[in-house]
């Protein structure tokens, strides 16, 4: 089981722990970037990591808004409206690609607002009316703290002023909902006091945790960027060169090509921090690069065909699926293991919270290797032929396999048969990927279709026809989909959010046929491995701008990595807990419960949990005659059913009442109605 970990926490705790170094570093980097920013006025942009520090005046009046997450819905209307407003602003300019990563460094000449922002702006203005010149952004938090300190129990300040906004700041429902765990339990009235106390206490605790989590969402300061064209211009026609030219140097340097014509085509894998890149050429070339600094960590040729390559839990080790066996190397290229139990591996996936390396082989075996103890956890014969399409669901650690007969099967190490098997394509499945929240799955098949599934309900949402089909798919942290057709990489936005999409968000032609694509975590970068080497392209809005330093910290030091490793190992999730529903652990095992209960009933001779039978009290003066007793019994018979019926009847009555009211409203006659036919 694995929970979605929240980034805010990390930031918060990092600050609490007094580890300011990171922040400091960030600030320094930002400071460097700002000079560049001022130079390139045409394109305001910034990369995820270092960038210009905001000029104090530029954003004081803007209120810090919660970052938009890609799973939050974006209404089309909003984006249209915003577009028009932008267009009005910049008619003079011929074309503009606006890419914004952080809100802070917009230098006052904002290109556009994120859709969510609209509402907040109005709030801003209204707030300003009340506060006058007071800047709300930075000072708000501090002032609230002061207010609290100054407040006395009677809700007044020492100065005698009254609090214009008494009580705690309200939290929007949506944000609260984001942190809701399980359904709220309505504590029934008629239970034992002690139990009731226990239940209410736990409910309160849950509420507290939820609200606090929602409150600290405030600390997610960063916002994602996007690309926007001028009127009549498609963003997909903007070339990478243009973008690289427009953005600051550090960001621009993230667009680069590696010409490796000898040993291609290449597959790639980014480490979970997004700092390290693995490249594996089909003809044996294995490289390990710190890609942002272009620092080569190791390079070798394994002199064998390489099928796939994957980082293990940290950047210290990686697994290579070679022609025959599975090998594990360290970051210096030293061979650590050759695992002969895993043969003919075609694809691999690493489950980071379980420390499991899942491999799919040409012989149809799906195997799980626990890399923390070096043990094979499970080997499943899928009996579904060659397995060369594989993806993992990060939400529940279920492995998705695509098959030549057009089906996609879902696997856990605990079951010898697929958890779910779904028919997705008429032809074979060429590629598939699952989004970060485990809600959506995107598949592409030989029938040249691209399909979006709601994987929770196993229902298709959209179906698209790509003229050339898509050979490899990848989803970014914020939900951008990249699909490669031949030598072209396309990026799609709003794959499931809005209506059906009609054209790609971005497109880029690489030198050779694409072999593997992958987004870099926490960066707006898409890596493309192809026949002629590797291309790193800039995709604005791909990466998650806020990272959780306790989960994955892109800026972590060696020491921090070591600490993290220990913690991660301690929090390792057992492979037995992998199932479709990760919340299964929080439920009572009904089958065993019933079995045990049955045994208990047998041993005791009665059912301790059974409802007590109603026993009428003895009454005098003939009121306990048989008939009277029966009557009294009847009074309480089927109480529970009665409750249900009563409720349903009430509901129905309510409905009827409403309808009748509506009808009455409709039937309100005017004098002229008499002429109506």
């Amino acid at each position: 089981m694995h929970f979605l970990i929240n980034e805010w926490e990390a930031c918060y705790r990092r600050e609490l722990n007094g580890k300011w170094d990171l922040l400091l570093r960030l600030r320094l980097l930002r400071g460097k970037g700002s000079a560049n920013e001022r130079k390139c006025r045409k394109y305001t942009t910034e990369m995820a990591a270092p960038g210009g520090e905001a000029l104090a005046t530029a954003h004081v009046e803007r209120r810090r808004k919660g970052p938009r997450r890609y799973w939050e819905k974006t209404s089309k209307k909003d984006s249209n409206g915003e577009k028009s407003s932008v267009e009005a602003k910049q008619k003079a300019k011929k074309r503009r690609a606006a890419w914004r990563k952080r809100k802070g460094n917009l230098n006052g000449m904002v290109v556009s607002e994120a859709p969510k922002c609209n509402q907040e702006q109005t709030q801003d203005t209204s707030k300003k009316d009340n506060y006058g010149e007071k800047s709300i952004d930075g000072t708000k938090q501090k002032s609230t703290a002061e207010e609290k300190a100054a407040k006395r129990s009677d809700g007044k300040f020492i100065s005698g002023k009254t609090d214009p906004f008494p009580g705690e700041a309200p939290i929007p429902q949506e944000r609260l909902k984001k942190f809701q765990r399980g359904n709220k339990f309505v504590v029934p009235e008629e239970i034992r006091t002690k139990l009731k106390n226990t239940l209410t206490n736990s409910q309160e605790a849950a509420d507290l945790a939820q609200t606090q989590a929602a409150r600290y969402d405030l600390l997610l300061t960063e916002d994602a960027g996007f690309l926007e064209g001028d009127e009549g211009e498609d963003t997909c026609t903007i070339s990478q060169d243009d973008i690289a030219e427009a953005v600051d140097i550090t960001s621009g340097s993230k667009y680069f090509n590696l010409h490796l014509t000898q040993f291609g085509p290449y597959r790639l894998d980014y480490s979970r921090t997004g700092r390290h890149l693995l490249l594996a050429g089909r003809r044996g070339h294995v490289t390990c690069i710190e890609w942002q600094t272009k620092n080569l960590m190791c390079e070798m040729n394994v002199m064998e065909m390489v099928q796939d390559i994957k980082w293990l839990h940290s950047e210290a080790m990686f697994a290579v699926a070679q022609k025959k066996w599975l090998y594990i190397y360290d970051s210096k290229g030293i061979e650590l293991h050759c695992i002969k139990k895993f043969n003919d591996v075609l694809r691999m996936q690493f489950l980071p919270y379980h420390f499991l390396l899942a491999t799919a082989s040409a012989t149809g075996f799906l195997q799980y290797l626990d890399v923390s103890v070096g043990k094979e956890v499970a080997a499943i014969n899928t009996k579904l032929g060659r397995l060369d399409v594989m993806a993992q669901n990060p939400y529940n650690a279920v492995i998705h396999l695509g098959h030549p007969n057009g089906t996609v099967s879902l696997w856990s190490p605990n079951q010898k048969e697929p958890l779910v098997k779904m028919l997705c394509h008429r032809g074979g499945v060429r590629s598939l990927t699952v989004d970060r929240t485990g809600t959506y799955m995107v598949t592409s098949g030989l029938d040249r279709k691209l399909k979006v599934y709601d994987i929770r309900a196993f229902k298709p949402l959209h179906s698209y026809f790509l003229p050339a089909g898509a050979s490899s798919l990848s989803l970014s942290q914020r939900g951008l989909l990249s699909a490669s057709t031949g030598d072209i990489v396309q990026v799609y936005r709003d794959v499931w959010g809005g209506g059906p999409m009609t054209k790609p968000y971005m497109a880029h032609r690489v030198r050779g046929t694409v072999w593997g694509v992958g987004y870099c975590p926490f960066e707006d970068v898409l890596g493309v491995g192809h026949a002629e080497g590797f291309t790193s392209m800039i995709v604005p809005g791909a990466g998650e701008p806020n990272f959780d330093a306790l989960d994955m910290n892109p800026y972590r030091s060696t020491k921090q990595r070591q600490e993290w490793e220990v913690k991660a190992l301690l929090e390792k999730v057992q492979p037995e807990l992998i199932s479709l529903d990760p919340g299964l652990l929080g439920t009572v095992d009904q089958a065993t419960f019933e079995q045990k209960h049955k045994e208990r009933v047998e041993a005791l001779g009665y059912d301790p949990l059974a409802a007590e039978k109603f026993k009428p009290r003895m009454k005098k003066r003939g009121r306990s005659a048989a008939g009277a007793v029966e009557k009294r019994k009847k009074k309480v018979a089927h109480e529970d059913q009665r409750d249900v019926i009563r409720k349903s009847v009430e509901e129905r009555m309510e409905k009827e009442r409403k309808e009748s009211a509506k009808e009455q409203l409709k039937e309100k006659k005017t004098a002229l109605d008499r002429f109506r036919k």
Partner: protein
Amino acid sequence: MRRKGVKAVPAAMAGGDNDEEELSPDDEHIISASEEEEGSDDERKHAKLLEAISSLGKRRRIKQTERSEASVQVSEFSVNTDGAGEKVNLSDLLGTMDKTPGAPNKTKQQLKNLQNRKETLELPLSKQQTEKIQREVAYDKSSKEVSRWETVITQNQKAEQLVFPLRQDPTGPKRMEQVVAGWKAKTPLEKEIFSLLHSNNQPVHDPVLTPAEEASIKAMSLEEAKMRRAELQKARALQSYYEAKARREKKIKSKKYHKVQNKGKKKEFLKQFDEMMKADPAGALEELKKMELSRMEERMSLKHQNSGKWAKSKAIMAKYDDSARKAMQEQLEMNKQLTQKLVVPSDDDEKSVEEADALPDFVNDPEPILDSINPWMRGMLTKELSEPEVTAVATETTIETKDEVQNGQQEEQGEDEEEEENEEEKLLREFERKRKLWQDEDDDLVPVPQEEKQVIHVDVAEAEQVARKEEVAGEDMIEISDDEDKEEEEEEEVVVSEFNSLFNRLMKSGSAPPVPEQTGAEGAELLDEGLVRVRNMDDLEALQQDVVMETTQPAPASATPAPSMETTSEPPKKKKKKKGIDPNEVLTKEAKVIKMPLAPTVVDEEEEEVHAEQTAIIKEAFAGDDVISDFLKDKRKQEKAGQAKVVDLTLPGWGEWGGVGLKPSKHKRRKFRLKVPAPPPRKDQNLPAVIISEKRNSSVASHQVSQLPFLFQNSTQFESCIRFPVGQTWNTQTAFKKLTAPKVITKMGAIIEPMSKEDLPPEKESSGAGRGAAIVLGETVEKETKKAGRRKPLRQKKSSKQ
């Protein structure tokens, strides 16, 4: 001196009680004053002397033989006939008392009473009985003492966290004397400082804190708040019980009971009325008015005239029956009494008139229609429906106020009717008073200017609402037609709100208790439309949003997003129906074509790629037919495997003829073919293109909870308690600390002593009687809950079972 006096008294009186020893100091003084002041020796000597003298003159007292043993034969010689004729009376013995001047009056009185008593003294109770009574008394006493701890104990049991030792010194600044006991200025510097302080009249021993600070420190603690809340709750409960009791009593059919009850009440009332005349003339006046009313009623009715059936029958009987005559007379008396005219002082009347004038006119106006459908809800039957919009605000407030007034009157009436002033009532009244006190405090906290501010806040929002307001003028409280009008409106509102607050205060200062707001959906709607109390910016924004929403609602067509640039083949039906694709047509669904800006270059170099492409094309050509059918076959197979199978246990030839061509009988087959109950419907029942495995995942079972922990009655309850993670990884620091807080914290090195009496919450001396009632009530409450607990879980369990 005193002792002497006390001693003297018992010497003076023969049969003095022991109790008399403990006389009031005043008496003793009197005695001691009357006594001569002499030494004890002299006194004794004097007494001796007197004795000697008296013995000289009189004949020697014959010593009588006493019968010490009961025997049949009594010697005739031993019987003394001297005193045979005379009886010794108590008065003889006590006669001397009157003569002795030293005996106190009280004692004399007591003795007189004793003399008058005719009956003999009762036998002392048997030992067992006395012991029993003693035990009972002792039990009561000790249980009372012990029960004082109950609240503390339950509180501690309930507490989420206990910190030991329980009594900890309060934080905050302390007085110097508290910190250093027995400390003295020794060093010359200290002495100098203190002398300086003294010379400047600075507080040395006085509290360090100013009274204001002290008060703020002493501000209501959590316990106090809790106590107050509990008190309120108790009051509420008490009220309900009282009501229930009254209802029950009202239901009693026995005439005699009511008669007795009424008589008692009347008596009580008369007594009270007398008191009231002195203490509360206004209240008495009310009473008088009521009497007047009853007089009127009496005059109107023929109730106590001799016209009833009963009276007629009595009239016939009266000739012969004394009691009947008496009864008739009594009735007539009653009539006379009731019809007697009362004298009412006139100046009080004027006062009441004035009071009536103090209320604004609109109080007497009919309520505006709350429920337009129900004609009975209207104050007047026919009138124009709505009043001018501007005054609507005012009328709205009057609803409340009028209600309050009415309720107040009702309450008073109710109280008067129930003249019986028992403890419960007293307690209730006490609570009422307290609540009012608190409310007044609360009122003081909200100053008027803020209200004005609120109104202005609202107006900001209203500026945007203008357009909408015109449409819904019918129900709106605040109607603004134009921007020009707005300012006026504002002023008016301010005035109105001020007036409201004033009026409210006035009402509260009167006897009327607060009245809950109108209930019902209609009322709620109306309230929604009222002045919105905008607490902060978000609310304000929400207000605007509301407006926006409502304005957009009537024209949904305009709100639909404009079609995007290249959407062509999108049928509108789909959007309306549902998001997503119908699961039945997963594969047959027409897909949307995506245009690509770049066409992929065909790579010739790679043989494999071309080959793959070719195979792809071939597969594509044949795709569809076998893939789907294969899948469906697979699914059917799975379904079949999951279906319940019939077990055939028939033994052919057993119990009947067997052989080739003979089949077991129908009856037998029916009897021995066991049908396994059908499994629950498959999860993929409605998903034709999906097979979901129905196998149970037993691997998680080892980690799951399989037995409900104690206290939980069903699994949903338990699951609700473990639904959220507790760990640091998933919670904020504070939440984590709260969730994992230990139940008991002990302070290192501190001695944890058993609870002492000082730990108990302070007892309230003020309402001794009330407290007693409260305790009784507490028990009843407990009983009630117990009853409920016994009944209701039953139902709950039933439901859980099903």
